[in-house]
Structures are given as structure tokens and as C-alpha cells.
């Protein structure tokens, strides 16, 4: 007798058997990014894995680039729609210290805080961490490396999704196109 638990359909299994390859995607010019603003890029085409199709890109005030998957490991929320801020640091009893300003990403669903440098969650002591992508700036262009499967067909299209900062500006009546 053969028993199955959550057997995948044949089509997905074939996709799963395809070879992995790394794709370097040009996100745009580095001068389009403001320090402290997390922007969300939607990637389509060329066998990009489903979970890698939305990536948050952040330039921190100290000039470091970070790219994270737009998926909270806690409950799967769109973590990159959250705020970038600091956090209260562990200190001695009776003292309060705010730190890591501009390096903490707060998931909008349950307010879990993640260190964008390491991807670690500051709330829960387990292995849940943000998935990070290698990101580099070369010749003024921001490039991120993501995983794709199957043969390379065409290129990757990049569309910038509305982020928290842009939504706030639009709500204030600002011209959204000026912030793209």
C-alpha cells in the first residue's frame, strides 16, 4: 500500500527538478535611492522563483545596501511595507536606550522587528529570519542576485511597488511621480 502526504502535482514537481541558477537583476540607478527609504521591487520573468518576486531594497544612512525578501517569516506578511526605525536596546534595569536607528524593519502585521543587517528577528528567539539577497552597486547601478529555475528566457522586468513613504506623500497631496 502506498500512502501520500501532500503530494505535489506533476507539473510543479517537474519545475522543482529544474536546475537553479543565479540571476543578477539591475534594479536601477543608485542615485534613485534615498537613505532610509525602503523601496519594493516586483520582479517578473526569466524563471524567478515565486517567493523572490518582491524584494525590498534599503540604503541605510551609513551607505550600506540591503535587499530582503518581502515576506515575514512569522506569518508571511509583506514585511517590506513596514517602517524602518530603531529599537530599544537591551540595557541595565532602570535605563532606556534607543539604538540601531534606520536598521530595524518592523513588520506591519504583528510589529515584529528585524535587523536588516543580519535578518534576525529581535522578538522571538528562534531561527526565523528575513531572507537576504546579495546586493551590489557597480557603475552606478544597483544589482541584486536572485535565484531562478529553468532555462534563461528573456530578461527580468522590474516594477517598483508603492511603498509606505510614497503612500504617505500621496496622502499629503504630493505628486507621486516625483518620488518614483
Amino acid at each position, binding site marked *: *500500500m*502506498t*500512502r*501520500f*502526504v*501532500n*503530494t*505535489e502535482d506533476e507539473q*510543479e*514537481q517537474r*519545475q*522543482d527538478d529544474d536546475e*537553479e541558477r543565479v540571476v543578477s537583476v539591475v534594479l536601477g540607478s543608485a542615485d534613485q535611492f534615498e537613505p532610509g527609504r525602503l523601496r519594493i521591487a516586483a520582479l517578473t520573468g526569466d524563471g524567478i*522563483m*515565486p*517567493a*523572490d518576486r518582491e524584494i525590498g531594497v534599503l540604503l541605510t544612512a551609513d551607505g550600506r545596501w540591503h535587499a530582503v*525578501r518581502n*515576506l515575514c*517569516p512569522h506569518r*508571511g506578511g509583506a514585511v517590506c511595507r513596514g517602517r524602518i526605525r530603531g529599537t530599544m536596546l537591551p540595557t541595565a534595569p532602570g535605563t532606556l536606550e534607543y539604538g540601531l536607528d534606520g536598521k530595524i524593519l518592523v513588520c506591519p502585521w504583528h510589529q515584529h522587528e528585524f535587523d536588516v543587517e543580519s535578518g534576525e528577528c529581535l522578538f522571538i528567539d*528562534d*531561527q*526565523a*529570519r528575513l*531572507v537576504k*539577497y546579495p546586493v551590489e552597486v557597480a557603475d552606478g547601478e544597483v544589482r541584486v542576485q536572485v*535565484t531562478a*529555475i529553468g532555462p534563461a528566457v528573456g530578461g527580468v522586468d522590474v516594477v517598483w511597488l508603492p511603498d509606505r513613504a510614497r503612500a504617505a506623500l500621496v496622502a499629503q497631496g504630493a505628486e507621486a511621480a516625483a518620488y518614483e
Partner: protein
Amino acid sequence: MQITVAVNRYRCKAMQKCVRVMPDAFEMGAAGYSKLLRDSFGEQDLPLLRKAVASCPSRAISVQVEDEDDET
């Protein structure tokens, strides 16, 4: 009893629930997807494997159990 476990990378969203349930069987790969650490599983692993399957929100883990007396 032969137990075959597979992780569908196309479905995996790296919620890392399987890693928490069975850290000796699953790990997060460099590409950000769950990977199997072992090739073989025994009957004693089935309870945790079922828990891993149930905990995966994207249903990316499949477990196939074949009994030895299977004639097909």
C-alpha cells in the same frame, strides 16, 4: 517501509517552520529555500515529518510512505 521526502522549491516561501520542527532534517539553503539534510528517513521520523508537512503554510513538503509489502 520506505519514506521519501521532498521539498518543492517552487512553492517554498522560506517561512522556516520545517526547520523549527525538524532541525536535523531541514535547513535553509543559501538561496533562501528549505533543503533536506538527510536522504533517508525511518518510521520513527514520521510523526515529526507529518508535523512538518502540516506546519508548512505553502504546502511545499511532500512525504511518500511505501510499505514493504506493497505489491504494486
